């Protein structure tokens, strides 16, 4: 009987063996990438979740860790400021995404047409994105200064304002000012993507619709918007995630102030961890932030897939 036992590999056709070898080689090639991803993504993620379950307070022992289960999460839930942090985060995410999208879509529709110097205008629109965000925020902080900022100066000079406004401390103007800076700094990313989407829509569709008597609004609602839908879906998803974790603009403009009026979860993670030295609690807030991002992503993708 033993004479009839043949190694399975020898029974496989040559093509299958080649495929298997190629697959192994392929996975081997992926190893460096997986190692890097594991090191920069999976391990920090694991560490963040692990730390969130510990009391790590540098002032009671440098890097001393005590397991406390979910207490850090309970603490956040019981923090009387938590509703303000969450509301601020919501305002920033929704307001930031909506304002960037509206500016980007408007510009994409205008600059997607055949207009004079189109390349120049498109290039100009991308400039804000090329600037480092901290530089952008610092420049805007100066422009918006309530005492010597140029915006007040110009608006008072041309008669739009009667007196100087303290844009970054006024309860009325604080969020619109932040969102305006955010829109200015972030719209080019959406604009580039939407512009390529707009340019990818076949002209024949518009021509045919016009022959059928469609006007500008109908063209937009019936052709442009539906065909941009996949691009818009991706952009909105990315934008929400970007805004959830965004730190630099808010930090440079207001440091989360006055008080906690513009503190979102992202700066709160930083302040809790590195100003209050509560690394465990900071990690828990970070995990909540990540959780919010994940929940939104899953729900949004399911919805988009369902609609598709």
């Amino acid at each position, binding site marked *: 009987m033993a004479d009839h036992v043949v190694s399975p590999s020898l029974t496989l056709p040559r093509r299958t063996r080649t495929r298997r070898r*190629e697959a192994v*080689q392929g996975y*081997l*090639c992926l190893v460096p990438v997986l190692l890097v991803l594991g090191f920069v993504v999976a391990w920090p993620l694991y560490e963040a979740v692990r730390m969130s379950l510990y009391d790590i*307070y*540098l*002032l*009671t*022992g*440098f*890097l001393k860790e005590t397991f406390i289960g979910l207490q850090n999460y309970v603490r956040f839930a019981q923090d009387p400021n938590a509703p303000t942090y969450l509301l601020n985060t919501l305002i920033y995410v929704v307001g930031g995404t909506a304002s960037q999208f509206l500016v980007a879509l408007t510009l994409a529709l205008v600059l997607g047409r055949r207009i004079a110097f189109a390349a120049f205008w498109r290039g100009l629109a991308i400039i804000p994105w090329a600037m480092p965000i901290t530089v952008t925020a610092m420049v805007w902080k100066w422009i918006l*200064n*309530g*005492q*010597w900022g140029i915006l007040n100066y110009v608006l008072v000079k041309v008669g739009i304002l009667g007196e100087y406004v*303290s*844009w*970054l*401390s*006024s309860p009325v103007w604080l969020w619109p000012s932040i969102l305006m800076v955010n829109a200015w700094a972030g719209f080019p990313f959406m604009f580039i993507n939407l512009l390529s989407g707009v340019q990818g829509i076949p002209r024949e569709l518009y021509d045919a619709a016009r022959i059928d008597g469609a006007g500008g609004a109908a063209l937009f609602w019936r052709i442009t918007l539906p065909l941009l839908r996949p691009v818009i879906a991706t952009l909105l998803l990315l934008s929400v995630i970007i805004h959830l974790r965004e730190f630099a603009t808010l930090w440079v403009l*207001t*440091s*989360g*102030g*006055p*008080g*906690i009026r513009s503190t979102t979860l992202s700066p709160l993670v930083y*302040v809790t*961890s*590195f*100003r*209050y*030295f509560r690394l465990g609690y900071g990690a828990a807030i970070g995990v909540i932030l990540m959780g919010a991002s994940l929940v939104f992503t899953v729900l949004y993708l399911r919805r988009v897939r369902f609609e598709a």
Partner: protein
Amino acid sequence: MMGRSISRRQFLRTSAALGAGGTTAWVRGAPSAGAAVKLTAVSAMVAEAEVAWEKEVQQKWNRANPDASWERENIGWEGIFEKVLAYEKAGSPPNLGYGWTGFTADWHQMGIIDAPEDHLGKPWKERFADYLTASGGDVINGKLWVVPIQAAAYGLVSRRDWLREVGVDPYSIQTWDQLVEAMAKVARAKRNKPFGLPLGNAWNAGEKTEWFFRGNGLQNQADFDPAKRANYVAVLETLKRLRPFIPDDALAQDYTGHRQAFATGVAGFISIGDYYFGEIYPTAKKLMTREQVVIIPYPSGSRGPGKPFSNFDMNCYYMMAHAKDKEKTAKLIDFLTSRENLLRWSLAHPPLKQWTVDEAVKHRLYGEAERWWLEDVQAIASKVPMLPSIGFVAKNEVQQVYYEHLLRVFDGKMTAAAAYDAMKEKIPALVKAAGG
């Protein structure tokens, strides 16, 4: 020309060979035990005078000590905490950290700093004898925990010309009532809100109102001694009385914005102390004249010292406890704090015993231009009590609680007494939880 193709197997082999070669080269390139030492410092130099000083002393040190070269990393105040902590966590703390009196209690509590006097002895400590107190924020359990580089005497840097316009002698402002009255006069005459205060974030707001607490018989914002309740409430009430003279934009200002407000002439009174000159002179030379600017000692509250006062703190390096090469670090500290080097430091004044204005202007960056300022500072220091800043643990978190309540008092959402009672529930607990 045809390109040469490469198989997957060849690619893998080549990659592996390159990787192995690189690793070998890296291992061979690692320093051996007997090699020259590298000392490191993470600092927060921002002003022209600070940056120039550190660069100069580094060059001097490195020329004289090729076997222990000093590498400095200057990252500014914003990132200093996390940078030092990250190095500490990674097991490679710098030899020297940087900060000021406000950091000392927390860093000491964490156990990440050493007392330099343990390595350099009492004679080294004696250099700073004028600034050593039993209660000061840099002396804990009788030991000096910092490497003093600068002593700062605090007061209200004020527009002398504005006060002259309304007929107020700057040195006549000795009580809080007189301060409020003077602000009202200036505000009326100049049609502005002249009192500068950086209320854009907790730590700046906390630091720049600290003097009210010292000036009313309290140690700091964390002093909730029940016997001093009225003192604390009076501080909050006085700040509320000053609110009409603080511009709304102060609520969006950090330390830099507050300084700019003075330099651009929109604020006329800021609590900043004698280091103001070195920070502002490079950008507002015309403003920094005796005719226009005066530093006046802080007026005191009714429960305070009873007369104007100044308080002081220090900017300093820290000797990091877990760094290597302690002996050479101590030598570097000794070098940095030599009389010659400290006299070259051009902000505030040297933390030395018996320094003279003549000696200082000879060594400092701005030379004779600073003479009048240093003379004024010395005059104040000799006439009014100099109270040391008293540190406390969990400072940043305490300041946040204080700041949020101060804003509620400003907004009229809370009375001063209610704010005190609310803070009393939180702040002592925070300090206690941090081991204070």
